[in-house]
């Protein structure tokens, strides 16, 4: 079996714009699932609402495409009522951190055995490019026409603070590392949070001087650095530019978890 067998062939072509980063994240997820040897009939994908959340519908397993922001409590019901299922959640930055922010911290606190994959494109893609809680200060969106005046959430740091057992952040440029991190998350009992910075050329790049898809991917390559390296720089008194995004594994630990397969 190959990871491509996990796609619903009769649902292609998909709704994503050309150059959208979501496809890469779905591929990485299915490669990880395939490597782990998960069975289709034992796996459930759950998602909220947004471009990113459409991902669940392209996969052959049972899947639950829910309401905006609520994927985690739906997934909590699935997982706790049948811990033998592998439950993976696809979500977006708006879905997870704005309307679903409360569910996010509580799912991490409970440390439910879910794999949560957030496609963070720093914008509301589906509704046409409004600002989200991860839109960087100063960035342009349809609701921040003069540049966002709010600070952004760091979703991975939030997940660490709230108690998730595994947290990693990569980008859609880092395909190998992302696939490995998703696999590691899936193997870790408890809540695994994998944040992926993804490009939204249609609604983010276009407005923020990253016109070409390649510009956005290049940006992710050049404006990221391993979290450990950034920590070392700070410790040695070096200045870290504010637009550098920390990537890598943030935490891997063994707090008591809920809903682990018996």
């Amino acid at each position, binding site marked *: 079996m190959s990871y491509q067998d996990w796609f*619903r062939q*009769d*649902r292609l072509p998909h709704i994503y714009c050309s150059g959208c980063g979501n496809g890469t994240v779905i591929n990485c997820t299915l490669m990880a699932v395939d490597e782990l040897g998960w069975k*289709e*009939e*034992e796996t*459930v994908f*759950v998602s909220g609402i947004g471009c990113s959340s459409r991902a*669940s*519908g392209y996969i*052959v*397993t*049972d*899947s*639950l*495409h*829910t*309401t905006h922001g*609520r994927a*985690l*409590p*739906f*997934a*909590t*019901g*699935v*997982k*706790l*009522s*049948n811990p*033998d*299922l592998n439950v993976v959640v696809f979500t977006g930055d708006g879905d997870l951190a704005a309307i679903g922010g*409360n*569910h996010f911290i*509580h799912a991490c606190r409970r440390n439910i055995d879910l794999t949560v994959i957030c496609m963070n494109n720093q914008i509301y893609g589906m509704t046409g490019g409004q600002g989200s809680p991860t839109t960087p200060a100063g960035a342009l969106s349809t609701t921040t026409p003069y540049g966002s005046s709010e600070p952004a959430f760091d979703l991975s740091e939030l997940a660490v603070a709230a108690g998730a057992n595994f947290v990693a952040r990569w980008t859609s440029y880092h395909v190998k590392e992302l696939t490995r991190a998703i696999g590691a998350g899936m193997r870790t009992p408890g809540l695994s949070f994998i944040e992926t910075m993804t490009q939204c050329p249609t609604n983010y790049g276009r407005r923020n001087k990253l016109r070409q898809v390649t510009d956005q991917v290049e940006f992710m390559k050049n404006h990221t650095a391993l979290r450990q390296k950034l920590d070392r720089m700070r410790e040695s008194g070096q200045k870290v530019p504010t637009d550098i995004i920390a990537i890598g594994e943030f935490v891997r630990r063994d707090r008591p978890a809920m809903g682990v397969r018996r």
Partner: protein
Amino acid sequence: MQGNIACAEGAIAAGCRFFGGYPITPSTEIAEHMAAKLPRIDGVFIQMEDELASMASIIGASWTGMRSMTATSGPGFSLMMENIGFAVMTETPCVVVNIQRGGPSTGQPTMGAQGDMMQCRFGSHGDYSVIALSPASVQEMYELTVKAFNLADEFRVPVFLMSDEIVGHMRERIDIPDQVPIIPRKPLQKGTLPFHPDADLVPGFPQFGEGYGVHVTGLTHDERGYPCATSPGLHENLVMRLVNKIESARDRIADYSITNPEAETVFVTYGPPARSVEQVVRDLGRDDIGHLRLRVVWPFPESALKLFASAKQFLVPEMNMGQVAREIERHVDQPVIPIPKLGGNLHSPDELKARLEVLH
């Protein structure tokens, strides 16, 4: 036994093994009882972070084949509305208990009311139909909770147990049967499209984890379950089917009792006001006063009204400003006289007798 405990016990007897909830007066005893009982019988109790999450969790649990339930009151019920619509659209069986209190807003947390009867019927956006039951005693709280689970599974719809503070906190002796009737969910036949309805307009249930590979979405979907949100015909057919699977079974779902069908003056009640009316009929010992007592309020059993062939007027005591009275008006030509009561107290038999005096 207390009404709320009878509800929890009825749920357990009916096979409910998942409860997701958030504390709210006057429903909290249900959650507390489930928290104590479920873990001992291999069930799951989880106190969620809010009622949006409670509703979401029981829908998720239902897709793994579990009978699942939540319990709340007005403010929490309002928060559940979006996901209730999701349960309707995805045809997810589940039971939502509303121990009603005085609203709007935080209102009267410790006082009974029936002010959410229209909200349970129409509160989520879009057109749809649901089933709502209303108990008038602790015994009925138990029995109707069991029935709610059976109806939810049979029709694949959220079923509301619309009780209130009065019955929820009432203590009465009840008979608990050794066994309760259980009508299980009809499974999807392999090879059938997951949202292809049978003759009863209800599709078989493709339980998660059984290899169906079903996609479940709140978007308008075709019989494969795939989103198809721009076809007017497909949307119309889907919504009509969701409504008709309930409305076409109105008479089968109906559950009521009738006193003095020849009467000219007929009380129509559900929930606690039924008790006051029964007292009035008993006290007066007259057979020209009829009583239609509903245990199922939605879908509204309009044919029951026609059984009162000599009726000249319908009196409808409700602990709201006349929500179900308005529904009755739609179905009869005779005058419908609402007897609203707000504030938390039940209509007293004397109050109702005085109303009769004025009318006669």
